[in-house]
C-alpha cells in the first residue's frame, strides 16, 4: 500500500509542476497580438482590414449622412423613417453611431504604430512600399476624421491605438478646427510626401485621394485659393480626366476601368455580405426604405430632360413606387424589360468616395466664388455636356448666384445618391433655404432647419454617449 501511495503523491507532484503550462491556451482561430506584425504580409492583411472597415462605414451611412437628409430622398412610408427627411433626428437613429469611423481610425492607428516595427524586423522590405502603406493609413485616417467633422463637428482625437486595457479610454471632444489643423491636414501632407505616384489602384487611398481631400477641405472652409492650388496640382499629376458619356455608368459598376474615379470602395458580396445601401434604395427582395424625391423624379422623368443620360442610368423610371435607384447596378433586364435587382444580401455596390467630376465642379464653385464665371462656366459645361446636355451659354448664367445654383443643381443630378448632396447644401449655406419649404410639405408641423441651425449636425448616438461619460451631446438634441 505504501508504495502505491507514494507513487501517487509523486505523480501528482509532477503533474502539478506542469500545470502552469497545461493552463496556457492560445487562441486557435485568431492570432495573439504578440504573434502578429512580423512580415510584410501582416501589413497587407492589416491594410485590407482597414479598408474592410471602410466598407462598414459606407454600407448604410453613405446614404444617411450625404443624401437622406437632403432633397434627394424621402422616406418610403411604412418601410423607412420619416425623421431623416424632416429634420427630426434622435440619438437612437441609424446613422448617428460614429463607431464604424473610429474602428477604421483605430486600425489606421494600429498600422501607423506597427509598420515601423515590421520595417525594423524585416529590413529587406522595399522602403517605397513601406511609405506607401503609411500614406494609405494616413489618408484613410484623415478621411474618417473629416467625415466626423462634417457629420458631428467636434470629436475625440485618437492618434495612437488603444491596445492595452491600461490606457485611459475616455476622451473629450476636440474642436473642429483643431482636428483639421492638427491632424487631418498634417496627415494629408504627410501622406503626400510618402505616397508613391505610380500607385493608381482605384480601390486604394492613394495620392489622388490626398489631393481630392485637400480640395474638398479647402472648399469646406471656403479657402478658394487653397482649393485652386491643390486642384492645379491634381490636374498637373495627369492622373484623372472625365469619363466619356458612353461609359458614364462604369463609374459605378466598374470604377477600376474608368479614368475618373479617384477612390471607390471595393465590394464583393460573397466575402463581404450585401452592401447595406441596396436595402435603402433598391433591392430585389425588399421594399426600399428611401423613396426618390419629387425633385429628382420630376427632373429625370421630364421629357425635356430625356437627353440627360444620367436619368435612366440613375433611377428606375419604370417603378411606380419611385423607390428603386439603379445607379449602382449594371443593366440586367427581365423578359418584360424591367431591371432585376439583387437581393440585399447579394448586392455589390462600389461606393464612389471621390471622382474627378466632383473636383471639377468644386473648382467651378471656387471660381464662381471668386467671380471668375468664365472658368466656372467652362468647368460646369464639361460635366454638363458629358451628361448629353447642351452646354450652358454664358448668357444664361450671368450672375454669381445663378451660376452657383447651376453648379449646385449639376452636382445634385451628377452625384445623386453618392453621399454629396447634404454636404453641398451645408457648404453653400443653403440647407434651410432648400430644405425647409420641402420639410413643411412633408410634415407640416416639423420645425425645419432655420429655427435651429445647429441641427445641421447629427446627434451622437445614445450607445456612443453611454459608453463614454466625457462626451457631450450636440445641442439641441437630447
Amino acid at each position, binding site marked *: 500500500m505504501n508504495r502505491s501511495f507514494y507513487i501517487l503523491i509523486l505523480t501528482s507532484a*509532477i*503533474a*502539478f509542476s*506542469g500545470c502552469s*503550462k*497545461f*493552463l*496556457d*491556451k492560445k*487562441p*486557435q*482561430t*485568431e*492570432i*495573439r*497580438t504578440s504573434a*502578429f506584425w512580423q512580415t510584410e504580409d501582416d501589413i*497587407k*492583411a492589416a*491594410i*485590407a*482590414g482597414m*479598408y*474592410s*472597415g471602410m466598407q462598414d462605414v459606407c454600407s448604410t451611412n453613405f446614404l444617411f449622412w450625404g443624401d437622406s437628409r437632403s432633397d434627394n430622398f424621402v422616406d418610403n*412610408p*411604412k418601410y423607412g423613417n*420619416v*425623421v431623416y427627411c424632416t429634420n427630426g433626428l*434622435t*440619438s437612437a437613429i441609424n446613422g448617428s453611431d460614429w463607431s464604424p469611423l473610429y*474602428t477604421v481610425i*483605430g*486600425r489606421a492607428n*494600429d498600422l501607423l504604430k506597427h509598420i515601423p516595427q515590421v520595417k525594423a524586423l524585416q529590413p529587406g522590405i522595399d522602403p517605397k512600399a513601406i511609405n506607401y502603406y503609411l500614406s494609405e493609413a494616413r489618408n484613410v485616417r484623415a478621411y474618417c476624421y473629416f467625415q466626423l467633422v462634417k457629420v458631428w463637428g467636434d*470629436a475625440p482625437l*485618437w492618434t495612437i491605438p*488603444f491596445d*492595452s*486595457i491600461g490606457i485611459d*479610454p*475616455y*476622451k473629450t471632444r476636440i474642436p473642429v478646427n483643431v482636428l483639421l489643423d492638427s491632424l487631418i491636414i498634417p496627415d494629408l501632407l504627410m501622406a503626400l510626401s510618402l505616397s508613391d505616384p505610380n500607385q493608381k489602384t482605384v*480601390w486604394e487611398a492613394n495620392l489622388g485621394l490626398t489631393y481630392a481631400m485637400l480640395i474638398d477641405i479647402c472648399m469646406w472652409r471656403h479657402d478658394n485659393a487653397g482649393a485652386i492650388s491643390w486642384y492645379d496640382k491634381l490636374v498637373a499629376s495627369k492622373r484623372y480626366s472625365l469619363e466619356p458619356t458612353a461609359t458614364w455608368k462604369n463609374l459605378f459598376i466598374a470604377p477600376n476601368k474608368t479614368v475618373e474615379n479617384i477612390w471607390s470602395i*471595393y465590394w464583393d458580396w*460573397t*466575402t*463581404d455580405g450585401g452592401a447595406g445601401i441596396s436595402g435603402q434604395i433598391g433591392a430585389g*427582395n425588399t421594399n426600399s426604405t428611401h423613396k426618390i424625391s419629387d425633385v429628382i423624379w420630376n427632373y429625370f422623368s421630364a421629357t425635356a430632360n430625356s437627353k440627360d443620360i444620367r436619368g435612366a442610368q440613375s433611377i428606375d423610371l419604370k417603378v411606380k413606387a419611385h423607390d428603386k435607384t439603379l445607379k449602382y447596378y449594371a443593366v440586367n433586364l*427581365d423578359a418584360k424589360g424591367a431591371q*432585376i435587382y439583387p*437581393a440585399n444580401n*447579394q448586392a455589390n455596390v462600389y461606393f464612389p468616395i471621390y471622382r474627378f467630376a466632383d473636383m471639377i465642379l468644386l473648382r467651378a464653385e471656387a471660381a464662381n466664388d471668386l467671380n471668375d464665371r468664365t472658368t466656372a462656366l467652362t468647368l460646369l459645361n464639361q460635366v454638363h455636356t458629358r451628361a448629353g446636355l447642351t452646354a450652358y451659354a454664358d448668357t444664361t448664367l450671368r450672375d454669381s448666384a445663378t451660376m452657383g445654383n447651376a453648379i449646385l443643381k449639376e452636382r445634385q443630378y451628377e452625384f445623386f445618391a453618392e453621399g454629396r448632396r447634404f454636404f453641398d447644401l451645408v457648404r453653400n449655406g443653403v440647407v434651410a433655404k432648400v430644405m425647409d419649404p420641402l420639410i413643411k410639405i412633408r*410634415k407640416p*408641423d416639423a*420645425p425645419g432647419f432655420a429655427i435651429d441651425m445647429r441641427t445641421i449636425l447629427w446627434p451622437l448616438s*445614445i450607445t*456612443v454617449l453611454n*459608453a*463614454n461619460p466625457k462626451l457631450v451631446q450636440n445641442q439641441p438634441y437630447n
Partner: protein
Amino acid sequence: MKKKPFPLSCHLFILFLLFSFIANAQKKSLPPGPEESHRVGGTVQDAKGNPLSGVSVTVKGTGMGTTTDSSGRFRLSVPGPESVLVFSSVSYENREEVAGRKQKMLITLNESGNNMNDVIVIGYGTAKKRDLAGSITSISAKQLEERHPASLGDALQGMAAGVLVTTSSVPGAQPNIRIRGYSTFSSAGNNPLYVIDGVLSDNMDWVNPNDVQSVEILKDAASAAIYGSRSANGVIIITTKRGLEGKPRINVQYLHTSGVLAHKLPQANSKEVRMYRQEQSPNNPAAGGNMDSLNPNFNADNDYQDVLTRLARKNQVDFGVSGGGKNMNYFTSIRALDDQGLVLNSYAKSLLVRSNIEFSPSPKFKYTSRLQFGYSTGNRIDEGNTIFQAFQRPANYALYYPDGTLTGYISGRRNPLSVALLQVNKFQNYQGTLFSQIEYQFIPSLRFTTNAVVNYTEGRTQGFLPKLLSSNNPLTNSGSEGFSRTVNWQYQAFFNYNRTFGKDHSITGLLGFSAENTQTNKASLADVNYVNEEILTLNSGTLVPSGTTTSATGNSLASLFGRASYSYKGRYIVNALVRRDGSSRFGANNRWGNFVSGALAWRFTDERFMSWTGGVLDDGKLRVSVGQTGNERIGDFDAQSKYDFGTFFYNQQSGVAPNTTIGNPNLKWESTLQSDVGMDLSFFRGRLLVVADYYIKTTSDMLYSRPLPRETGYASARVNVGTVQNRGFELALTGRPLVKKNFDWLVTYNLSIERGVVKKLNGGQSFISGNSSDAGNAAWLIREGGALGDFYGWRQLGVYAYDQSNAYNDNWERLTPNFDKSGNFLGYTFKGQPYTGTVHSVYGRSTKLQGGDAEFANLTKDSVIDNSDRTVLGNAQPKFYFAIMNTLRYKQFTLSFTFNTQWGNKIYNNAARVLDDYGTSNIIPQPYVIYHMWRKQGDVTDVPVYRSSSVGNVRVSDRFIEDGSFIRLAYLQLNYTLPPVLSRKMFAQSVNAYIYGSNLLTWTNYTWYDPEFPSSDPLQLGQDGGNYPRRREIGLGLNFYF
C-alpha cells in the same frame, strides 16, 4: 501533466476481458463451490407483512448483491457468515443484518418517509442524509419514472424547491434550469453544473432518464463548493443504475402519446382581413375587396393553425438487461424515442445506449467501466416562418395554386405551409462517453479512487431553402452545412477516509486532484444555386465565402480539493471544504481561484431538553452554512487581446483586424458568496417532513462585458465588476396523510420564493438591454437596485377619444373636452370645473397627437413623449413558484399527478406586438385589434387608430406586457400493476400498464400559446417571440420486467 486520454482500443480490450469474466463468473456459480456453505436467503416484508419486491440486498463493503423477487424472496452467496447484509428500498429505512448461516431470514423494513439513513451522493463520495449539513435535495428513480419524460431535465420540474425548470415544447429541446435565481449576466454563467457518474458536464442532454438511479441537487455553497469552479449556480449530480447480483433482469417498456394543440389562438379570417384593409385605405372603398375575383391568390380563407399543426405523436421504447455475478455486475439499456411535433415536419428522434459494468476480483479492488452512446436527429422547424408566420399572413392568401402546387411568396408574405414542408433545418448529433474507474480499499477506512473519461460529441446541421421560398429575383435556392466536434477528457484521483472512533465520533475526509481539457472545432459552409433540390450536398451549388467559417477553441482546468467532516453522535456535525481551481480562461496573473466553505448542523431533537417533543417531532436538525463558489464560463480567450481574420476581405485580400473585445490580463474568477440557514423536521414518525431553507447569495466581481468608449475602436472588455444578490426561501413538505393496508397517499409540496437585486454595476451606470429604439421588441432596464427582468418602456394610459382630448393644464393633468349634442366642441373642464387656463398638448415624434393616438404617461411633464418618459413596467421573474405532487395507491392501482405553478411574472408578448403594431401593411393584427381599433371621434377604446405615418402610437409599452402566472396540471398517471399471479403466467416478474397525460389543464390569463417558455439570456427574460406551441398529451404505456 500532458495526460493522453485513455485510448479507445485499450478501453475496448478491457471491456472484452470483463465480459469474459462475466461469462466465467456465471459459469462458475453453477457447480457447488466453497462459497456454497455461505449461501443465505429469506424473505423481505413490510411492517404489515406484505412481501416487498425489488428490495436491494447487498453485502456491505463489496459490490455483491441481489434484489428480492415479486414474493419478496432473495438468495445470495456471501463471503462468510460474518458478512453484513444491507437491505434497502426506496421509501423504506435501510436495515443491516449479519448474514450468519440462515436460509430463511425474515426481514421487516419500516417505511420511512424521512429516509434519514438514505445514502446520498455529495460529490467525490457519499453521505448519510442524517449527517448532512448542507442543502441538498435528493430525487429517486421512482419519482422520475412517473413522469415518463423525454428528457431528464423535464423530469426535474417541480421536484425540488429552489430549482426552476422551464420546459420547452419544441421536439428534442432541453429545458432551462435555474437553481436559486440568476447570479450573473451571461447565459452560460447561470447554468448549473452537471456531474454524471462523477463526470463534470455542461448539460445532461444525453442521459436516459430511465437509467438514473438518483439525482442529487446541491443548492447551497457548502455542498456545491466541492465543485468550486463552476458551481455558483448549484450542482446536479446524476447517478446511473448498476446491476445487482442474480440472473439477468430484462425490462421492456413502451409508451405512446398523442398530443393536440393545447391552446388555439384567435386569428383574423378573410372577412376581418377585409375590415382591416378598409382601415388601411379609408379613401379606397374597394380596399380589401376582390379587385380580381378570378385571382386565386387572394380568394382563400385559411385556418392556418389547423393547416400547420397535426396530432403530435411520441413513441418511446426502452429495453434493458441487468444483472451480476459474484464479482461483477452489469447494467445495459437502450432507449429509442421518436417525437413527431405539433407543427408539420418538426420532429426529433434519439437513440441512447448505455452499458455500466463493475468488476471486483477482490473485496479491496473494484473496476468500473461505463459506456454511453447517443444519437439524435431531427428537423428544427423555423417557428418564425411557420407557426408564427401563420398569424402574420392574411387569411385570404392562397396556400395552393389551382394546379395543386404550393405557393411561395404572395405580397411579401411567405407561405408557412411551404416553409414547414420544404425548408430543411436538420441536425444530427452523435455523442459517446467512455469512463473507466479503479477503486482500491487500502484499509477499511481509506479508499483510493481514480478515473478517466473521454466525451466525444459530433454535430452536423443541414439547412436548405428551396427556390419556391426565395425572395430573390430571379429565384435562387440556398443552403448551408455545419460541422462541429468537441472532445473533452477528464482525469480524477482522490482519497476518501471514513472512520468512527469509539461509538460517537465519526470523521470523514477527502483529498483529491482533477484535470480536464476540452477542444471544440466547428466549420460551416454556405452554398447557393443548387443544381437540383433533391440532393442537398454542397457539391450541388456554389460556395459562398462569407457564409463559410471555421472556428476552434479549447480550455483546460486543473483542481485540488479536500473535505473534512466530523460528527458527534450525529448530533453535532461540522464540515469544511476547500477547492483550488486553475482555469486557462483567465489572465496569466489570476489563473487560480480558491473556494472555501463550511457548515454546521445541530440535531436539536437529540438533546435531552427537547425530549418533550417526542411523539410529535421525531427528528429536527438546524443547518447553517456559508461558502464561496465560482464561475468561469466566458469565452475561452476573453482575457487575451487578439486579431481576427476571415471576415475582413477587401479586393480579394483577406484582412486582419483587432478583435472588438480587448484582452484583460488581470481577469479573474467571479465569486459567489452564499449563506444558508435551513431546518429539517420530521413529525409523526416520518409522516410529515419539512425542509425549509433561507439563503442569501451574492455574486461579486462579476465577469462583465464592460462597454468601452467607441472611440477606442473597441466595443467592450471583460472585467470583474458588478454585484448581484439573490435572497430566497424554500419550503419542501412531504406528507403521508393516509397509510392503510390497501390505500395510501403521498403528497409533496415544493415552494420557492426568490428575490434578486442588482447591487452594483460598472460605474453605477444603468443600461438598456434589448431594444433601445422606442418601438418593437422588448427592452429591459438593468440598474442598481433593480432586478434582472425589469421591462422598460412607456406606460400606455389609453387612446385619445377626440382630437380635443390631447389637452392638459399647466400641471400636465388631463382636461376633459365637452361637446354638445351635434358634436361641436364647447370647451374644457377640469375636475368638473370649467377650465380657462392655457391648454397644453403632447407631441409624439414631433407630431401633435390626435384622437385615436395612444396616450402615454408623461412622466417628465413636458410637451413630448420621448425616451425620458420611460419607466419600469414589470418584472419577468416569478414572485414564487411551487409544485404539488400526489401519489395515491389503492391495491394494484396508483394514481399520481402534479400541479405546477409560476406566479407573478410578466411576459412581453412580442408575438402579439408584431401583429398589432401596424408596422407592415401585409401583417394582419389580431381580431380584437381589428374590431376595437379607434375609428372615429369619440370612440373609447384601448387600441390606437391605424395611421400610415408613425407618431409613436405603438411603443415598447405595457400594452404588450401580460401576466404570466399559471397553474397547470402538468402530469397525471394512472398505473395498474398486474397481480403477481397473473404476471407470472406471462413469465414476467412484474407487469404494469398506465395511462399518462401531460399539460392537461392550464389556468392562466396569458393570451399567447403558453406562459411557460425558456429564456436563456438573464438580461432579456420573458419575451415571447412566438414560441412553439405546447401540446396537451395523452398516452398509454406498458412495462414488463422479466
